[in-house]
Structure formats: structure tokens, C-alpha cells
């Protein structure tokens, strides 16, 4: 084992240890180097942040539904003089921070951080990550980020928290005087961004190394679960895209703090100051930013795709439909993802020729997505479906992803994008992808792997209720946004109704806000279910779902070192309903082949010793 695991000596014992070893509570549960603990830490943190981001979103919705009315709870505290009606810069702050928190502190960490950490070693049959300390750091670098965002709220008052949009385009974000939120708060925000970047970078390095080097015997690349594939591809994406954003962030900080001149052109008169000096180019930021942030969209989606594939297969008791096409399409998405960033800038006045190329590449990226959708449907096709919470969330994932993907075609085609750019159509689009797809995927994953995390199952009734309310609330909130977008309703408007052509849309917005509140309530059910099940949930054995993955051969929860014995892999992860055996409809990756002829035995030299263990 120790020959396989560079980390064996690091926690001073072999794989057979079951977590009962003499390290203090702090080392074990707080500054832990155990990938499972870290994963759970990530999960809890991100769920917490989910609530914060949701609260900010409700603030936005409130203003859109009842503009300038007394804001519940905080209104009378922050804006007592104005009768509790929020100020416009406060609204732009809400918009900005909602996006920042949700993207950087919820979705990215919950996928790569929480599930990546927890699942990768378990699913490839390793006893931990390649670099456990790095892993721990990657979690503890989240907190400086959270702290920075927190400071940016406080540093010059709630009214002057970052409000330049999560894209924070210069010049607005580069000049301190251009907006209330463009002061010190913006610098703190950028620092927070950098810390998130550092954290994800540590993670991705770790994941790549682990997945390449630490697979159990017999776990060939094409025997890896799609979850692992997606995590692997995501890690690569991050490793290549992130440095650009970090560089851009540093450039902007340099511009703001050290008076460099990357983004601000000369001769601008902002807030009655003297004209700016310098020959910067605002579009430079947009290119750099989107060169990261478009791949980031897939960083925020691919892992969910992978996990959903695994969960679907398990819930329909059926091999995944077209395993290799799934892998290839994920790779294709990742590859194309690097050359489509320009479709965020069709109206920005960049060279129109570029516009065409980006348009075509963007169209093409819809293709692998389509293939995956068809394959998922194919997977369900002819399966004996278990309609449990996990399944429901997975189906919702597919269904929402179809909507989000299809509305993307309007964005890809430049002329229609000219109209839809920065309207609520876009907002609808990315919420269907990021919330509708990714978050439903995550909800499913939470219910699916919860037994492995804590040894108990989550409550089904609460799970179904949570799903039902979230699904209804979600569609009620975001589907009408398509209509708003078609009606030319621009994003980030504190009071759109001063424009006569939007006045009649206020009732619709009120409806959406009510649905959003419903959705907010539903999340409390999830949180409650999550914590209460920890004590009262039905005890789960090693393999509550009768699934095939390696993780299900480990005890629940797995002890330190994960596996009692080094697992040996004989087949892919999706051999459900295999005709090879009759007594059950699943065949785990570790199950020795019923008759050796059908299944290629793993190559001898690596697995000889452990093969004997098995015997």
C-alpha cells in the first residue's frame, strides 16, 4: 500500500487504520488532512453561503416587486430616514454580492471542493488525496476569501459595498470615485477573488495528481466513474483558466492601488474630477475576465454532469447509455470552452470578425451538451426507475439543463444576442444552467452520498418536499424571466418601471418574487433534513443504493484510510442488471468476476499481492 500511496507515511499508518488514532479533536475535525472531513467542511460552509447568497437574492427580488418599499427586517435599520426604502447603490450591491457569493463561495466550492474532495479518493480506491496538507490549505484559503468579502461589506458601509457587478468591468471598477461601491470595498472584493482562485488552484493540482497516480489496481481510465472524469476535466480547466483571472485581478488591483494604467483610457471625467490620464483599454479586462469566467461556467457544470450520470445509473439500475461518448463530450465541452469567451462581448464593440468565429465555436459547444442530454435520456430508457429524491433531482437536472442549453442558442447566435445581451433573458439562461442544473445536481448528490458521509440516510419525505417546493419555486421564479428578457427588461435595474415600456411587467415580477420566497423557505427544509438526519436518519449499510462504485465497498462512514482492504477493480462502474449474475441487479467494481473468461483480469504485477488478499 505505502508503495502506492505517497501519503501513507504522512499519517503514520497503513490503510487498515479505521480512524481510531491518537490525534486531537482539532487536528481530526478542524485542521484535518482527511479528504472526507475536508469535503464535509466544504459542504457545510457552502450550504451556509447558499443561505447568505439566497438572502441577498431575496433583497433583489423584493426591490423588483415592490420598488422603494420598506425592505423587510433590514430596511428600518439601514434606511430608517428614508422610511426603510433601499437606495439604488444598495440595490446594485445586492445584485453584485449575490452573484459573487453564489458563484465563488457556493457553486465552485460545493462541486470541486465538497464532492470532489469527498468522492475522488473513494471512487478511485485511494486512501486519501495525493497531497493532504495542500488539500487542507485549499479549504482554509476559502476563509480569507469569505473574510475579504465580509470586509468589503463593512469597510465603507453597506451602502458602499462592491456594486460593480460580479463582472466588475472597468472603468466602473477601476476608478475609486466612479460609484459608491468602487472605493476600498472593490479592492477587498478583488482580494477575496484571488483567495478563491488560490483555493481552487490547490484543489485542481491535487485532483489531477490523485486521479492520475492513485487509482486502485485495475481502475483503468475507462473504468473510472463519470464523476471522476468530470472532476479530472474540471481540474484541468481550472488549472489552465484560473491564472488568467488571477493575473487580471492583480492588474486591476495594481491599477487601483499603485496607479498602473491597464484598463482606464485617458480623458474620462468621473465625479467632477480632472480628466483621467493614461491609455488603458477597458476591453482588455473583459477578454481576460471571460477567458476565465466562461470556462468557469463549465467548471460549475461538468462535475454536476458527472455526478448525475452516476446517480442516474444507480437509480435506474442500468448501465450508463454511451459511456465513452459521455467522456468524449465532456472533454469536447472543456476544449471548446476555452474558445467561446467572446460570446459575452458581442455588443462590446470588439472586432466583428471575432464575433463570427466566437459565434460558430459557441454554436458547436451546444453539440456535446446535446449528446449528453440524449445519453441521459437513453440511460433512463428501459430502466426500472426508483423515484426517490435522488432520482427526482437528477431528472430535474436533465430537464432544467435542456431549457438552459436551448435558451443558450439565442445567445450563441449573434444577432439575437444583440437584443438579449444584458436583459433578463440572460439571467434566466444562466440561472437555468447554474441553479436549475448544477444545484439540483448537488441536491441529488447530497441525498445520494449522505449515507456514505454520515452512515445514515436522509429523510425521504422531507427530501421530496424540498425537491417539490424548490422545483416549483425555481421555475416560477426563473421561467418568467425569459418573458421579461424578450420584453427587453434590462438587468441590474433598481427601478425599471420608470421606463414606460416596462411598467406593465411589475405584476409578473411580484409573482416571481413570491415564488422566490417559496424557494427560500424550501432551503430551510434541506438544511433541517441535513442536520436532523445526522441524528435520526435510518442507519445505512455500506451500500444503501445497491450501487457499483468503489466507494460503496467501503464502510459508511469510511474510516481513516477509507478501505478495509485495498480494492481491486474488475470492471467499469455501470454494470447494473448485468446478465452475468442472477441473484442481484448490480455488480460492484470490486466483485470478482463470476466466470473469469468474460472479464479481463487486471494486469498481474500491480495487483498480485492484493489479489491474494482477496482470495
Amino acid at each position, binding site marked *: 500500500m505505502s508503495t502506492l500511496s505517497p501519503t501513507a507515511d504522512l499519517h503514520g499508518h497503513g490503510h487498515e487504520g479505521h480512524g481510531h488514532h491518537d490525534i486531537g479533536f482539532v487536528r481530526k475535525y478542524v485542521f484535518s488532512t482527511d479528504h472526507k472531513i475536508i469535503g464535509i467542511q466544504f459542504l457545510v460552509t457552502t450550504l451556509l453561503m447558499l443561505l447568505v447568497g439566497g438572502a441577498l437574492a431575496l433583497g433583489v427580488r423584493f426591490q423588483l416587486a415592490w420598488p*422603494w418599499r420598506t425592505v423587510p427586517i433590514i430596511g428600518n435599520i439601514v434606511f430608517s430616514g428614508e422610511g426603510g426604502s433601499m*437606495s439604488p447603490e444598495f440595490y446594485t450591491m445586492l445584485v453584485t454580492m449575490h452573484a459573487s457569493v453564489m458563484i465563488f463561495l457556493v457553486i465552485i466550492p460545493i462541486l470541486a471542493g465538497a464532492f470532489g474532495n469527498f468522492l475522488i479518493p473513494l471512487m478511485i480506491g485511494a486512501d486519501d488525496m495525493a497531497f493532504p496538507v495542500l488539500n487542507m490549505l485549499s479549504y482554509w484559503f476559502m476563509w480569507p476569501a469569505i473574510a475579504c468579502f465580509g470586509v468589503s461589506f463593512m469597510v465603507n458601509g453597506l*451602502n458602499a459595498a462592491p456594486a460593480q457587478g460580479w463582472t466588475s468591468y472597468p472603468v466602473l471598477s477601476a476608478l475609486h*470615485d466612479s460609484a459608491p461601491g468602487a472605493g476600498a470595498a472593490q479592492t477587498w472584493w478583488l482580494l477575496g477573488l484571488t483567495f478563491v482562485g488560490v483555493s481552487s488552484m490547490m484543489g485542481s493540482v491535487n485532483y489531477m495528481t490523485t486521479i492520475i497516480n492513485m487509482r486502485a489496481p485495475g481502475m483503468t481510465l475507462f473504468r473510472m466513474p463519470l464523476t471522476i472524469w468530470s472532476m479530472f476535466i474540471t481540474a484541468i480547466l481550472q488549472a489552465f483558466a484560473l491564472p488568467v483571472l488571477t493575473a487580471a485581478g492583480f492588474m486591476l488591483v495594481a491599477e487601483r492601488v499603485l496607479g498602473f494604467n491597464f484598463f482606464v483610457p485617458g480623458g474620462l*471625467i468621473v*465625479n467632477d474630477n480632472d480628466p483621467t490620464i493614461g491609455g488603458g483599454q477597458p476591453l482588455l479586462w473583459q477578454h481576460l475576465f471571460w477567458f476565465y469566467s466562461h470556462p468557469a461556467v463549465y467548471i460549475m457544470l461538468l462535475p454536476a454532469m458527472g455526478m448525475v450520470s452516476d446517480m442516474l445509473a444507480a437509480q435506474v439500475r442500468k448501465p450508463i447509455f454511451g459511456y465513452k461518448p459521455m467522456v468524449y463530450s465532456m472533454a469536447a465541452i472543456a476544449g471548446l470552452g476555452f474558445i467561446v469567451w467572446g460570446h459575452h462581448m458581442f455588443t462590446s464593440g470588439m472586432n466583428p470578425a471575432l464575433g463570427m468565429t466566437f459565434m460558430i465555436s459557441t454554436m458547436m459547444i451546444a453539440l456535446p451538451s446535446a449528446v449528453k442530454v440524449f445519453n441521459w435520456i437513453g440511460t433512463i430508457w428501459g430502466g426500472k426507475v426508483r423515484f426517490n429524491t435522488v432520482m427526482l433531482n437528477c431528472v430535474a437536472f436533465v430537464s432544467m439543463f435542456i431549457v438552459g442549453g436551448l435558451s443558450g442558442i439565442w445567445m450563441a447566435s449573434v444577432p439575437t444576442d444583440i437584443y438579449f445581451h444584458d436583459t433578463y433573458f440572460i439571467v434566466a439562461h444562466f440561472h437555468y444552467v447554474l441553479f436549475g442544473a448544477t444545484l439540483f445536481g448537488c441536491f441529488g448528490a447530497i441525498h445520494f452520498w449522505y449515507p456514505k458521509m454520515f452512515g445514515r440516510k436522509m429523510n425521504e419525505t422531507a427530501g421530496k418536499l424540498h425537491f417539490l417546493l424548490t422545483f416549483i419555486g425555481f421555475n416560477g421564479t426563473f421561467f418568467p424571466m425569459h418573458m421579461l428578457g424578450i420584453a427587453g427588461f434590462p438587468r441590474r435595474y433598481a427601478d425599471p418601471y420608470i421606463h414606460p415600456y416596462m411598467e406593465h411587467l411589475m405584476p409578473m415580477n411580484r409573482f416571481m418574487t413570491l415564488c422566490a420566497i417559496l424557494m427560500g423557505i424550501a432551503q*430551510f*427544509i434541506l438544511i433541517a*433534513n441535513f442536520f436532523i438526519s445526522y441524528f435520526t436518519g435510518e442507519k445505512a449499510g455500506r451500500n444503501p443504493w445497491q450501487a457499483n462504485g468503489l466507494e460503496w465497498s467501503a464502510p459508511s462512514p469510511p474510516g481513516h484510510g477509507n478501505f478495509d482492504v485495498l480494492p481491486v477493480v474488475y470492471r467499469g462502474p455501470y454494470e447494473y442488471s448485468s446478465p452475468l449474475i442472477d441473484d442481484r441487479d448490480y455488480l460492484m467494481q470490486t466483485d470478482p468476476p463470476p466466470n473469469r473468461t468474460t472479464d479481463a483480469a487486471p494486469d498481474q504485477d500491480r495487483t498480485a499481492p492484493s489479489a491474494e488478499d482477496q482470495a
Partner: protein
Amino acid sequence: MKFSDTIVCAVALLSIAGCSSNSVPQFETSQDTEKLFQPARDAVESELHAAFGTPDQLVVWPELPVDFGNFGGSIEKVTTQGTVVVPLSGQSPLATADRLPELSGAAVLVAPSGGDETAEDGQAPAEKAVAVYRVAHYEPESKSLHVVGDDGQPTQISATEGDGIQIIGDGLQKGRNLYLRHCVHCHGVSGDGDGPTAPYLKPRPRDYRKGLFKFTSTKPGIRASRDDLFRIVKLGVPGTYMPSFMLLPDDEVSAIVEYVRWLSMRGELESKLVVQLSLDFSSTRLEDESFADVSAEFDEFRGSDLPDIVSSAGEELSVDWSAPEDPENVVTPKEERVASSEESIARGRKLFLSEKTKCYSCHGETGAGNGTATETINDLPGQPGVKAEEPGLFDSWGQIIKPRNLQRGLFRGGRRPVDIYRRIHSGIKGTPMQAFGNNLSDQDIWDLVNFVLNVPFEKKTQASH
């Protein structure tokens, strides 16, 4: 049941959130008032409350020249109790016939005999006793007006044929609603130019409470006219954060203007009262006198002098704020503009650089707004002998103010020749920009105007030479 418990809690929480008591905007007390001896401060606040009310309970002070969109007319005949026949006609742009059916709840003033003189402007006759009722409803076709008492109870209307009827319109509420939607973030609920957004803006939003507006068409010492404010709201102030509200309908803009004037009057009344009280009833007196003595003295003062002060202040307000509407007080050039020519511009430049006007000492030789006056350190406004940290001139609001950089071609008060003429003729109120009207001829001023309008193109011409 654990889950349902949690859900109950969540719902309860959000219900509370949803139904949290909706507070209403409040007028703030000025800092000068804060400095007063507590009972004096209370007196000022109660007087203000009596005269102007709160943002959601506006009080109409009929003496004030505010256009409430009133309707007026004289009674044709008194039919039953609480019902009279009176043809109502609008007395202002805000009072349009289509509002007639919506008058319910509006205040009704009845001025015995000859009330028709009220029809001239929005003012009730000060001398005569005026009975106050409220509109139950009005039927435009039958011209019959049903009223109830001010308390809402059915009542006998004491009026005879020929009495003047005046109905206070809702122009002010309209203005208030629009103000709270479009203006309050910067200018603040009480018009103190200190809304939540204000601290981040340069220059600071206007503080109405001095009754002082910079860019007016009126003579020195005269308030801003409705047209001036209307123009500013419509066109905005280029180069500042005051945006143009060009596309607001005219009646909405007029309503806002009326509300702004009303706020200014409120602010002025406050500062007038404070001036009257600050010498004798500032809180500093408590340092060496007992509270009892001061309050005893104040009670006497409040009984004897305060009512007179308030009512006379009200009269001053009505005089001051009616004045700008009088064409006499509007600056109109006597001679036509001198055509802009090389010579005229040259003459203008000569004047600009002359000892006679000393324009250059603030605006600089090249008109870049960098004259020597911007480099000298001045006393802080209102506290002689105390030097400011940074050099520069101050305006009446205590803010550092930059002389206009004429090279940018941004003219805050408007770029029409007449606008610039007025700036030069009667100065910019509340700023060091002085009035030259009484020592420059129209000819001279027009030359200066031509020069100023040409400054943005000066550099090019000089470069070409």
C-alpha cells in the same frame, strides 16, 4: 414532526419579515436646530410640524405661494346641508378638469363673500375667517359639491351664495410621491442634500433649506423661479450627478418643482426660527445657567414673541417666493446679443483679463478655472479666523467650490447666451461668482459671453498661430 417544526419556524420568520411594520420617511432636524436649548428645539420642531407636517401627512399653509393644483369658484346656491352648487375651475397647470372627480377627501376652504379674489393665486384671503371642510365627492356635471367636516363627520356647511370656495388639490402629494421616487436618494427626505447616495457625489447635491439655488434667471437676492427649477430638472446640470429628467411629463416635473419649493420654504422657516433663537437659547447657556431659569425665560418668550415670529416669517416666505414669478425680477438683457466676431471675442478677452472684472483671478488667464484665488487658503465659512486645510473658495453650503473650467465647454446653468449673460449679470447665487450687472454694460457682458463661449476653441486657434 421535526421537519414540520423547522418549516413552521421558517414560515413564521418570513411572515414577520413580509409583514414587518412599514416605517415612513421622516423629516430630519437641521444641525443648527440641534444646537438649541432642548425646549427651544422642541418648539421649533412643533412649529415646523404644525406648518408643514410630515412626508406622509403634508400640511397646507395657504399663505404660502405653493401651487397645490387648487380648484376654486364661487357658490351659486346652497342646496341641502353639506351640499352646495359651485362651478369649480382649475387654478394652475396641476389642476386639470379630469382630476375633478378624484377630489374626494381634499380640504375645502370657504371664504365668506368675495372669496372670488382667491381665484387669482393659490392663496386664501388672510384677513377673512376661513371655514375648513373636506370634499365628500363632487359631481362635475351637476356641479354639486358634497362636503363633510374636517374631522370627516357630516356637517352643516355655513356658506351663502357668492362665497368663495377653494379646494386644495393633491399637487403636493403628487410631487411628494415623485420626489420620493426620483430625487430622495441624493437630496434627502427633507431636502437637505444628504440622502444615502449624497456622500459619494461631487459636487454635493443641493441643500434646499437655504432657499438658495445657483442657476436662476432672477435678479440678485431673488429666489429661483418655477421656470428655473423646471429647466434644471428637465435638462439636468451638465458635469454633475444631477441627471436630466427630460422625459418626465411636464406636469410631473411641475409637481416635483412645487414640492421642492415647499421643502425649501420648510427649510427656510426652520433656519429663520433658529436664527431668532440661537443668540439667547443655544444649549451652551446651560453651562453657566440653571435649566429652570432658561426655560422660564423661554416660556415667556414663547408666549410673547414666537407666534409673531412664525407668522411674520410665513409672510416673508410668501413674499420672497412670489417675487421670482414677477417679470420685474427676471434678468432680461436690454440689447440684443452682439454677434460673435473676432473683435467681440477680443473685447471679451480684454474684459476677462482686465482689472475691472478680475475674472482671471478665479477662472485663470486661460479660463481653465485655475486662478490664484483657487490656490489661496481661506477662512472656513462662518468661522472667521479659522483657516481651511485645503486651498480654494467656499460656497454658502460650506463646500469647496471650483471656479468653472471654461475650456471644457460644460455650462452647468445652460449654454444659451442668455444663460451665460445671466450668470455674469447677476452672479451665481451662493457662490463667490459675483454680479457684474451694475458695472458692466450689456455690450460688455455680450462680449464676455462671446468670449466665454469661444474659450473651448481658444487653444486650437492659439496653437494654429
